[in-house]
């Protein structure tokens, strides 16, 4: 049998139904703040044990895809990323919803997610073994430089003062050191609390920093949460399509960035969407509109984060190393089913693999009709629901969602405290995104640095370890570009103005 016939096996009625159920369930779970894609997959793993392996994989893949996409609903409609990979979706998605274009933003996110998902799946189908080899070239030093590169994006991402962006990032970095350190096993900033040993959970911090300020503002201001849409308007599908057409290069570039970042285990969807967002902003002719409800911003992040689904499966299948946290769960499910990853996935088990990839394609395509349907409903509900009901519902979800991540009540306390602190800070211009970026990138940078240092000592040259490899040098070049470009642009506009004034 050839590839196509294996993929066609994914089209059997049972598999198709599992894909539909999986996508719909994934969207709903992903849309609720705190219920992440990892959790969606973990909850459903036991259900799949009784199924044949192909069906199980199709369902898990569908849930995963759906959940990553579903994360954009909460990001757009309530300014809270449903999953960490939707952080950057809040930047433009929420301002769009706020001015009454929430339906358009949801439609755009659906189209973008589908395109991103397809690009990721094509990469998985055609380039998996090659890309996995590239992923292995990234050692601790490269991860360190990559994290530094991520931190430099703060200057591109922060609205207003770059300095305040760095203050936020510093706070995030500090928070990331709380708990037992991976290297050295030192206990830092735990203040004797057994709960703080586990560190600050990223998703709890996300929920707190983004959602609590929204709740406070909802209560504190008399105006409606979102501008109601004009009556009798549809899902604005055509408008969405034409915007997608305008942003086609943006979408393609973001999908490629998403796939590329996802093959690096541990980097993940949040970094992918932030990188593609800042790239979109840098290259756009409307870059001053970013952060104020620019459709291209939503397109960039949503194509990128869905491209990570297919991209993340590349190291999972080829190397047996999970690319993203949900992949780790799916890998575990595969092992329990008696499958071994690695080249066998593309030789002896090729039937299962290709049926799965076929299932991933189908799930991604199904996301369009199912997503538009659920999205429209979600948008109308959020718009028409009175504040008195909306606020307690969101508050309830944030608490349940935070608790559910690790079954730890203390995470809820951390979430609320960070939320209030975040609200105060954002009134002084320190926005949540740099804080979260620091929290996510801190451990990657720290571990990469110490590991690189140890390796450098062993080989006799620390400088050689950090600056001696072509790949690290390439990333260092990116860092410099990212730092110097905004400075250069600011200098150019200033000198332009001066010349204009001179005349």
């Amino acid at each position: 049998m050839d590839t196509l016939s294996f993929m066609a096996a994914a089209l059997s009625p049972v598999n198709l139904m599992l894909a539909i159920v999986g996508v719909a369930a994934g969207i709903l779970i992903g849309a609720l703040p705190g219920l992440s894609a990892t959790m969606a997959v973990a909850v459903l793993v036991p259900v799949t044990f009784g199924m044949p392996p192909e069906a199980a994989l199709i369902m898990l893949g569908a849930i995963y895809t759906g959940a990553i996409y579903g994360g954009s609903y909460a990001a757009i409609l309530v300014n809270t990323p449903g999953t960490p990979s939707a952080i950057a979706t809040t930047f433009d998605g929420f301002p769009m919803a706020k001015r009454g274009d929430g339906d358009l933003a949801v439609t755009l996110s659906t189209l973008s997610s589908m395109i991103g998902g397809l690009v990721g799946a094509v990469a998985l189908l055609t380039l998996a073994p090659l890309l996995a080899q590239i992923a292995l070239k990234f050692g601790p030093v490269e991860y360190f430089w990559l994290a530094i590169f991520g931190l430099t994006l703060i200057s591109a991402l922060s609205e207003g003062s770059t300095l305040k962006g760095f203050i936020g990032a510093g706070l995030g970095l500090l928070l990331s050191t709380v708990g037992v350190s991976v290297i050295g096993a030192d206990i830092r900033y735990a203040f004797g609390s057994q709960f703080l040993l586990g560190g600050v959970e990223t998703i709890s911090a996300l929920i707190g920093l983004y959602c609590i300020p929204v709740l406070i503002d909802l209560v504190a201001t008399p105006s409606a949460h979102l501008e109601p849409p004009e009556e009798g308007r549809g899902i604005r599908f055509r408008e969405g399509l034409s915007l997608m057409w305008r942003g086609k290069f943006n979408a393609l570039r973001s999908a490629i960035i998403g796939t590329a970042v996802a093959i690096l285990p541990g980097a993940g969807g949040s970094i992918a969407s932030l990188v593609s967002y800042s790239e979109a902003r840098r290259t756009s002719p409307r870059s001053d509109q970013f952060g104020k409800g620019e459709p291209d911003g939503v397109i960039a992040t949503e194509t990128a984060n869905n491209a990570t689904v297919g991209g993340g499966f590349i190291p999972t299948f080829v190397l047996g190393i999970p690319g993203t946290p949900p992949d780790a769960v799916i890998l575990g499910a595969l092992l329990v089913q008696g499958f071994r990853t690695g080249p066998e996935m593309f030789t002896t088990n090729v039937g299962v693999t290709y049926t799965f990839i076929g299932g991933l394609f189908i799930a991604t395509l199904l996301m369009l009709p199912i997503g538009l349907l659920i999205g429209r409903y979600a948008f109308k509900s959020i718009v028409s629901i009175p504040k008195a009901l909306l606020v307690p519902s969101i508050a309830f979800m944030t608490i349940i969602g935070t608790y559910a991540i690790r079954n730890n009540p203390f995470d809820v306390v951390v979430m609320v405290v960070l939320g209030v602190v975040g609200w105060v800070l954002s009134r002084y211009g320190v926005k949540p995104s740099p804080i979260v970026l620091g929290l996510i990138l801190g451990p990657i940078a720290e571990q990469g640095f110490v590991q690189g240092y140890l390796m450098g000592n062993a080989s006799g040259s620390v400088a050689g370890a950090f600056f001696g490899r072509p790949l690290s040098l390439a990333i260092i070049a990116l860092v410099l570009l990212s730092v110097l470009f905004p400075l250069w642009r600011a200098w150019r506009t200033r000198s332009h103005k001066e010349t204009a004034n001179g005349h």
Partner: protein
Amino acid sequence: MRQTRFTTWKLGALMGGLLSAAAIAGPAMAADAGSFPDHNIQYIIPFGPGGESDISARLQQKYFQDITGQQLIIQYMAGGGGAVGWSQLNEMDGDGYTIMGTNLPHIILKPMGKDPGFKTEDLKNFFYFHYSPDALIVKKDSPYKTLDDLIAAAKKAPGSVTVSGSGTQSANDIANRRFESMADVKTTYIPFKGTGAAVTALLGGQVQAEWGYTTTAANHKDKVRMLAVAADERHPLFPDVPTFKELGYDMTGGAYRGMAVPKSTPDDVTKKLSEIFGKINQNPEFRQKMEDLGFVLIDVPYDQMDDFMAKRRAEYEKVAREMGIIK
């Protein structure tokens, strides 16, 4: 109307996603060893999903149901390398319907250093069911064909051989220290976050060797080679790989896994649980699946637990002193 429907929709999704929350809120029934268990048992893994603790627990699930007719519901309470879960275990309901995975050397080593919120002797372990033997792993194309090759290289230039492993003061770190003192060599141990990251560093050629387990080698069979295994006998999956003992180093051990109940659980219920999990360990299908993944099964029931723990503790204490965990 739209609003009520919206709320139901949310609640529905929430309930679906949160079977776990419902299980916690379930009524605490009086324990009775005769009919035990008469409802589902929740099995807390103090790590994230997808790791070896999770996978081995998932394998037990099916056979638990075959034997008791009840389900094992697996939940995760990750944080602090297990400490977050273990420090809360004794406050949970001691009716036998809550059990938690425990791991060696973690539960012995952690309290030796700073206070992680629990004490080793406060954990009521009732059954230890397997271990992943430590193994020194190199890439297939590595110049180190045998353990002696690696030792010779490390002797020639002390500290130049880099070895990755998961975490500091972990099973891997300890294995490396024990090996260093037995073979009288010095290596550079580089801790990574989890076995996955440690093996990635090996496969990518960032380090020359990795302290992993037979399970790691089973998972990456085509790309890696084990130099030696820290088990009493050669593993059935790898009949060609010698044990450390054969090569003259008295090293057996690895990451042991078992289960504990809250301290307040009555003894008869605890014994019953120990019996049930002992039966799972006897199931030939279960044994086969575990061995295929590279695990080695052991049987340490409740009444032999104290001896077993005392032996392990003596082993770890010696290394912990050398490592400076105990001062």
